[in-house]
């Protein structure tokens, strides 16, 4: 073995040359050392790098290096630590298989930790590295000082000792730094022993979308985008050049002349990046934004015009986009033309605020749209409104509401100034027009004054704005829209015509008409071949109105086809009207309120007005719906005569008595003059002396007080039932009648012949009556009074009185006889009476009252005497 070793040494030295002329060239910035030597024919070398002070091996590898033409072999080594950190020793030897030469002489790369440099130092300084990379710092402690710690940003980092004064620490996966970099520093044992380095971490340049364009077919504007910031600023920021011309640190450069080829180059300490753009100038035309936009607007269209800053566009085929914006919409409309400078916008909404802006592009070789112009606003003109959406709601036979919806946006075509509602009947040329404010969307209507003989009434609604009136929207207010249906054989028979749209039959629903909310609704479904049905229900009650609605069943929503209304049995109304009077000179204006629908308990046919001049009730007017024409003459005559007589006699009292629909199960109503009450002695005497009820009502209440709803008495009647010196007026609302007779108390022809009429006796027996105190009666007052007795009596007898319906049967013949004996109006459908005393206003001349003080005293005396039982 010794021989072999000696032989090897001999051969090695003889045939494997030792590398000569070893030299070092360092690059501190890149931390690289270029080692060169002359190694003869050898191509494989062992390279050894040691830290000089501690003799630690940094690098020891066999490398294969081809000799250059000069005979030198070179190897580039990159150090993990900055080369300033500590001194390094380099040696090279040649290798041939297992045979190696001796090591070359040691070359030392001097570090900054030599004793001659006593400063505290840190490396690398001001280095810029890519994000995500690793870096090794080193600190050289001052000569004679001690190391304490190393910090990067806010963390303490473990260190490795490289030499007597040098310590190194590695930081991994660096994150991008802010503009002032990351701080790394090491501390000595004292506060003054501090030194560090700043490292900047970022990205190499990167940009996209490098495009050169022209606005005028001559010059060029090149721009690009930077999708990722380099995080490097100041001296480290990215710099750009286009076609070798340096640009500012902006993302756009302008050039006076177009070039076919454009190259953008960007660089920073971490690298460089370039992009090119090749294009013909005609394919990169981007017009400047249009200027000086203006509009000329009409109701449905507008013309937008604009100007061009450059004359180049006058002959350039352009395509322009107009963006039209309204309150809730945004549309783009495209127009084209050579040197386009205007566009007409159609299909606009009247009286609408619009904003508009324009941008253009080259029509030929379109590249992209130019920038938008400034936005301008305009408003289209007004136009007549569209027809309003109108509906009706009939809440009674002749009363209801015309309803219309507020205009939806863009339907009014301008601010609505007013609505005009016109009611008219085809049979009558008179039109009833009412103008209402734009905030009004409903108007109550009463067809009784318009419709004659229940002919239909047409309601037209038009809206008005500054441009004019809308087309009318009309509705037929057919009072017969709801068909009355009789209750026959325990059911409501409904029939209808087959509806072609009904694909799955019909639905009939019914409910109480008086129900306002949460109504119990019943319904039945029948097949499409069915066109009639009889509705039976145990829930039906007399005196309650029911609505029946027929709907067609189809794939869409059910459609209302027909409506009916009906009672199983009609009853007399359960409440009185609110009666009021107003004296107008020698006339008396009588007015009363409508009966609530729930109190009607039957179809209301009209009202009778009676004059009570003491003990006699005389009909003044009869507004029976079906018989008004027949009774009009008689009523007018009676009113004239009675008025004349009362005026002359001052003893008559106007008494208007309701004609209730009489329930046969109830007691009949009769008005009994006081004289008769006294004569008959039917318990009336037991009434309290100071009762407030009029005589007629007192009896009525005695009989029908079982009703769930008590009749309401006018407050004015509280004066006294016996104050027959004052005139009283009663209004009766007539129930079902078979006769248009103006006389109320005649139950039928037979009974009227059997029973003596009470009215003449009552009227004649009264010694008071209405006396207008403003006009004193003449001397022949007695004669007039006598005449007034006879006329109402004769009128009452001739008119025949009220004839009850057949269904108002008394429970038994005996009972009927008994009732017949009580009053001639037995079984009458007359309703509760409302009475209004026709007294002069308190504002009447008091002097006149004083003059008639004796008359008033007489009246009071009579009052006290007549109210006693």
């Amino acid at each position, binding site marked *: 073995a010794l021989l072999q070793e000696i032989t090897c040494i001999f051969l090695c030295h003889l045939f494997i040359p030792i590398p000569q002329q070893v030299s070092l060239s360092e690059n501190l910035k890149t931390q690289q050392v270029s080692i060169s030597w002359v190694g003869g024919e050898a191509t494989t070398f062992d390279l050894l790098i040691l830290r000089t002070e501690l003799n630690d091996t940094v690098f020891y590898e066999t490398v294969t290096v081809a000799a250059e033409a000069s005979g030198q072999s070179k190897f580039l080594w990159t150090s993990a630590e900055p080369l300033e950190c500590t001194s390094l020793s380099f040696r090279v030897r040649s290798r041939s298989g297992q045979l190696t030469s001796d090591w070359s002489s040691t070359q030392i790369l001097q570090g900054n930790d030599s004793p001659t440099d006593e400063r505290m130092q840190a490396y690398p300084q001001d280095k810029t590295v890519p994000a995500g990379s690793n870096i090794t710092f080193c600190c050289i402690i001052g000569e004679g000082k001690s190391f304490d710690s190393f910090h990067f940003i806010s963390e303490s980092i473990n260190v490795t000792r490289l030499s007597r004064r040098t310590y190194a620490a590695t930081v991994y996966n660096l994150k991008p730094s802010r503009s002032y970099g990351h*701080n790394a520093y090491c501390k000595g044992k004292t506060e003054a022993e501090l030194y560090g380095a*700043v490292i900047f971490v970022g990205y190499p340049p990167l940009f996209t979308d490098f495009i050169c364009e022209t606005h005028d077919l001559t010059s060029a504007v090149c721009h690009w985008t930077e999708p990722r910031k380099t995080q490097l600023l100041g001296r480290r920021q990215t710099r750009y050049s286009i076609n070798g011309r340096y640009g500012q640190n902006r993302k756009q450069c302008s050039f006076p002349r177009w070039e076919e080829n454009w190259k953008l180059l960007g660089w920073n300490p971490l690298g460089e990046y370039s992009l090119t753009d090749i294009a013909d100038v005609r394919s990169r035309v981007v017009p400047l934004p249009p200027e000086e936009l203006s509009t000329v607007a009409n109701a449905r269209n507008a013309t937008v015009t604009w100007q061009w800053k450059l004359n180049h566009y006058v002959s350039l085929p352009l395509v322009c986009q107009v963006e039209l914006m309204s309150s809730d919409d945004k549309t783009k409309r495209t127009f084209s033309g050579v040197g386009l400078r205007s566009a007409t916008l159609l299909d606009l909404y009247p009286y609408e605020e619009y904003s508009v802006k324009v941008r253009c592009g080259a029509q030929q070789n379109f590249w992209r749209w130019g920038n938008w112009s400034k936005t301008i606003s305009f408003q289209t003109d007004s136009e007549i409104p569209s027809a309003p959406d109108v509906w009706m709601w009939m809440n009674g036979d002749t009363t209801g509401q015309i309803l219309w919806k507020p205009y939806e946006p863009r339907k009014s075509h301008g601010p609505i100034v007013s609505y005009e509602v016109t009611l008219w009947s085809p049979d009558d040329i008179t039109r009833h027009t009412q103008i209402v404010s734009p905030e009004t969307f409903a108007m109550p209507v009463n067809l009784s004054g318009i419709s004659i003989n229940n002919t239909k009434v047409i309601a037209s609604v038009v809206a008005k704005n500054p441009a004019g009136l809308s087309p009318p929207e009309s509705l037929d207010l057919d009072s017969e829209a709801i068909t009355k249906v009789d209750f026959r054989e325990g059911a409501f028979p409904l029939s209808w015509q087959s509806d072609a749209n009904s694909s799955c039959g019909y639905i009939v629903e019914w409910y109480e008409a008086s129900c306002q909310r949460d109504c119990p609704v019943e319904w039945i479904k029948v097949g499409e071949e069915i066109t009639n049905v009889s509705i039976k229900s145990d829930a039906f009650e007399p005196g309650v109105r029911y609505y029946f609605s027929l709907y067609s069943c189809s794939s869409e929503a059910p459609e209302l086809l027909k409506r009916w209304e009906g009672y199983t049995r009609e009853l007399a109304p359960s409440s009185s009207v609110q009666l009021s009077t107003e004296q107008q000179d020698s006339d008396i204006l009588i007015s009363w309120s409508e009966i609530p629908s729930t109190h009607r308990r039957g179809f209301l046919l009209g009202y009778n007005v009676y004059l009570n001049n003491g003990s006699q009730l005389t009909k003044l007017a009869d507004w029976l719906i079906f018989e008004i024409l027949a009774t009009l003459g008689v009523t007018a005559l009676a009113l004239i005569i009675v008025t004349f007589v009362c005026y002359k006699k001052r003893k008559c009292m106007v008494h208007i008595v309701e004609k209730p629909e009489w329930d046969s199960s109830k007691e009949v109503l009769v008005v009994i003059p006081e004289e008769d009450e006294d004569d008959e002695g039917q318990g009336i005497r037991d009434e309290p002396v100071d009762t407030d009820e009029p005589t007629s009502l007192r009896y009525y209440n005695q009989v029908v007080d079982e009703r769930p709803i008590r009749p309401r008495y006018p407050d004015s009647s509280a004066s006294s039932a016996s104050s027959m010196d004052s005139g009283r007026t009663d209004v009766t609302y007539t129930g079902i009648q078979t006769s248009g007779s103006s006389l109320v108390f005649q139950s039928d022809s037979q009974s009227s012949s059997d029973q003596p009429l009470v009215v003449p006796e009552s009227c004649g027996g009264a010694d008071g009556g209405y006396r207008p105190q403003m006009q004193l009666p003449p001397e022949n007052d007695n004669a007039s009074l006598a005449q007034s007795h006879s006329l109402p009596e004769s009128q009452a007898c001739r008119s025949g009185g009220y004839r009850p319906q057949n269904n108002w049967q008394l429970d038994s013949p005996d009972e009927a006889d008994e009732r017949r004996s009580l009053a001639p109006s037995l079984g009458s459908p007359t309703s509760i009476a409302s009475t209004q005393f026709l007294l002069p206003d308190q504002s009447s001349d008091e002097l006149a009252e004083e003059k008639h003080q004796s008359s008033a005293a007489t009246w009071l005396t009579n009052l006290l005497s007549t109210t006693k039982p």
Partner: protein
Amino acid sequence: MNEHVKSRSLHLCTHTAATLLSLLLVMVFDSTKATVATQQCGSTLLQTLKLARFAQKESVDIIKTYKASQGDMSEIICKVSLSGLPDPNISGLESSEQMSSVHSSLQEFSPHFKRVFDQQTDLQLPDSPLLDQLSVISRRSLYLDSQITVLYQQLFPNSPPLGADGGATSLPPPQNVFQQKVYGCVVLKTYKEFLSNVSKYLRTLKNQMCGINARRINMFF
């Protein structure tokens, strides 16, 4: 005898009158001097003192901004001491010498401010508040220096005028960024300390020159 006595009495009387007149002149002179001093207190000196205090407050504020603009652990880099900066202390025994020292130091600080501004321009975003504040304190120091010059001329009109250039200022050699950060902070800290000393000096000067009247006036500052 009587004439001698009369003459002597007249002489004595004359002497007494002269003495009184001299005393009166001295009093008038002192009063005039005090009035002049009071006027000075109410104008340049007080304005200079007020300006120095305001500049001191700005220096405190900018140090906070500076530390916040240098990265983490920037507090520690402000603890490093550097040489070659203006002396924050005011030198000289006489008041005029001290005022001249203030003037010199202000002029020395100016190039340091510019150096710090340039260095920070490389580290801060263009809209950084630090750059604005650096510009402000640089201009303020020049204004304070001009005030000091005016005050010096008023208080020491017979003394040689203050130098315009203040002598050549030695700036540090090119620094790495870490050194720049340290340098900027130390410059600002030194400037703040200097302004504190200037304020003390001017306050002392005010007390010396203005006395009670100045104290009364100073109550309003």
